[in-house]
């Protein structure tokens, strides 16, 4: 019998590339499906959400200004590092969700594949949703998709695949994200944050908060410096409605919660939801 004392990990937030505790100092107990204690996670406050928005805004210029090819490389790198840490994530999925070993393996496979799939779209999306418009005059008329800015993402319950499926499409197009991780299973989200911190994702591009949706989502929906909100993880229709109303004040782009099969190949809609189209007229021959 060993006398060694356990070294337990503190799960913290991910804001601006750093891992701070909640400024409120609060935490909450994360339990496994059988109700046993797993770990303490930080219980983020509205102030943390605000700090995360500031960090995301600061990172937006640099991230959106990178070439789409470079953003693809960074997202692909997340997939690479995730693959190399799959054993840890599989174990975390089994602990937190109680899924079988083979199921956990499938989820990690799918999460890696999804990152690779979205990474591939980074420098191809413009060709698909942009256009050279024919106009009645001697002009080039080009419509190109541009990132919206800071996007708040309320992640669905699925701790890893769900998070990757909503996060990758937001950042790959050049937006920066403030994510409210799954309230029930926050631990894999923080592990994913550690992966991103070591995968060349610039600080502030992705910010992950763990805490309650009901506390964090209203502040983000009403925040005037947030340009879009993805409500996928909101399962209470009344809350979803009030968030949409709050989001209307600065004309945020809103993606409503809807039933979705995360195991299937996604459509482009998660990327196009947070893009805006810029059209440029340029005289021909000048």
């Amino acid at each position, binding site marked *: 019998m060993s006398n060694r004392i356990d070294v337990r990990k503190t799960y913290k937030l991910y804001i601006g590339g750093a891992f701070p505790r909640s400024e409120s100092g609060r935490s909450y107990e994360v339990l496994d499906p059988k109700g046993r204690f797993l770990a303490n996670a930080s219980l983020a406050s509205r102030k943390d959400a*605000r700090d995360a*928005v500031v960090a995301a*805004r600061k990172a937006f210029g640099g991230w959106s200004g990178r070439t789409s090819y470079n953003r693809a490389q960074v997202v692909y790198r997340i997939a690479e590092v995730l693959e190399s840490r799959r054993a840890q994530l599989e174990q975390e999925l089994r602990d937190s969700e109680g899924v079988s070993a083979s199921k956990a393996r499938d989820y990690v496979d799918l999460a890696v594949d999804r990152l690779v799939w979205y990474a591939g779209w980074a420098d191809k999306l413009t060709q698909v949703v942009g256009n050279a418009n024919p106009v009645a005059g001697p002009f080039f008329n080009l419509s190109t998709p541009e990132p919206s800015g800071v996007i708040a993402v309320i992640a669905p319950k699925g701790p890893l695949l769900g998070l990757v499926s909503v996060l990758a499409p937001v950042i790959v197009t050049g937006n920066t994200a403030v994510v409210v991780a799954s309230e029930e299973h926050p631990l894999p989200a923080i592990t994913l944050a550690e992966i991103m911190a070591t995968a060349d994702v610039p600080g502030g591009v992705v910010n992950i908060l763990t805490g309650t949706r009901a506390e964090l989502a209203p*502040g983000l929906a*009403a*925040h*005037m*410096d*947030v340009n879009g909100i993805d409500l996928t993880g909101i399962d209470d229709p009344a809350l979803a409605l009030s968030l949409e109303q*709050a989001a209307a*004040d600065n004309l945020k782009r809103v993606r409503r919660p809807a039933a979705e099969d995360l195991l299937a190949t996604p459509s482009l809609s998660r990327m196009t939801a947070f893009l805006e189209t810029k059209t440029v007229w340029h005289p021909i021959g000048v």
Partner: protein
Amino acid sequence: MSASPTITPGVTSGPGSDFSDVTGSDAALRRFLHGLPGVDQVGAEARAAALGTRSIKTTAKEFAIDLAIRMVDLTTLEGADTAGKVRALAAKAMLPDPADQTCPSTAAVCVYPDLVAVAKQTLGESGVHVAAVATAFPSGRAALDIKLADTRDAVEAGADEIDMVIDRGAFLSGHYRQVYDEIVAVREACGSAHLKVIFETGELQTYDNVRRASWLAMMAGAHFIKTSTGKVQPAATLPVTLVMLEAVRDFREATGRMVGVKPAGGIRTSKDAIKYLVMVNEVAGPDWLDPDWFRFGASTLLNDLLMQRTKMTTGRYSGPDYFTLD
């Protein structure tokens, strides 16, 4: 727990005391300034850090934000300044938040002397002052007659306040009398305009020097003592401002005359501003919690104060998209 004792040797207490005995010669001035108690560096920094941890919320925060807005010297000191930019800044100083008429105006607009007339024309009788930096700002490296001409120009153009820089070279070489005489001369050239004396504390190296410079400027008749030009890092810091606030407090105790303090440069967030206000109240006293006695030299700070103010009134966080870029 104060970082220094209030007792100042060599100063006869009571209102109206003059300093002719200590300012008569370089040697006497040095004896006095070097006789000031040294600043406990660790103590001053710890005290400043401790005061920065106070939690200011709800109504106290509302009060602090409005007070901080009223204390802002909205500043633009760039080589690229144009008359148009100064007009825009002056308009913003009068009505910082066009969406909310209850928002107070700032204390002053701070510009280079050649743009004083433009600022004055826009501000008119609004009550917002025009402050001009003079005396070969920011380096202060010019002959005295040029510095005085610079000052007179600004005053004639309508400046209500003059921000002068001290000759740091002379100060650091111990030529205190030269620095003193220069401040006295500029004060005369100011006429009825108020004089703020900039130390550029980032170049003074030690807190002891900041304390000496504070006393030197106050004895020479400064209305305000100011930390920095904003062109040198580090600019205003909490401990430096703490030392200066102690100096004005002690100076009033010794002479009965009140001198204002203006930290400038590097104060960008409402939280920073509130930390300064807490320190003013705790170190100098509530008498200094007034735009006549405490100012912030800042440009980006105002937008953050306005965003916080909007958050307090509307309940939703605002963003930089809704305020002017300046």
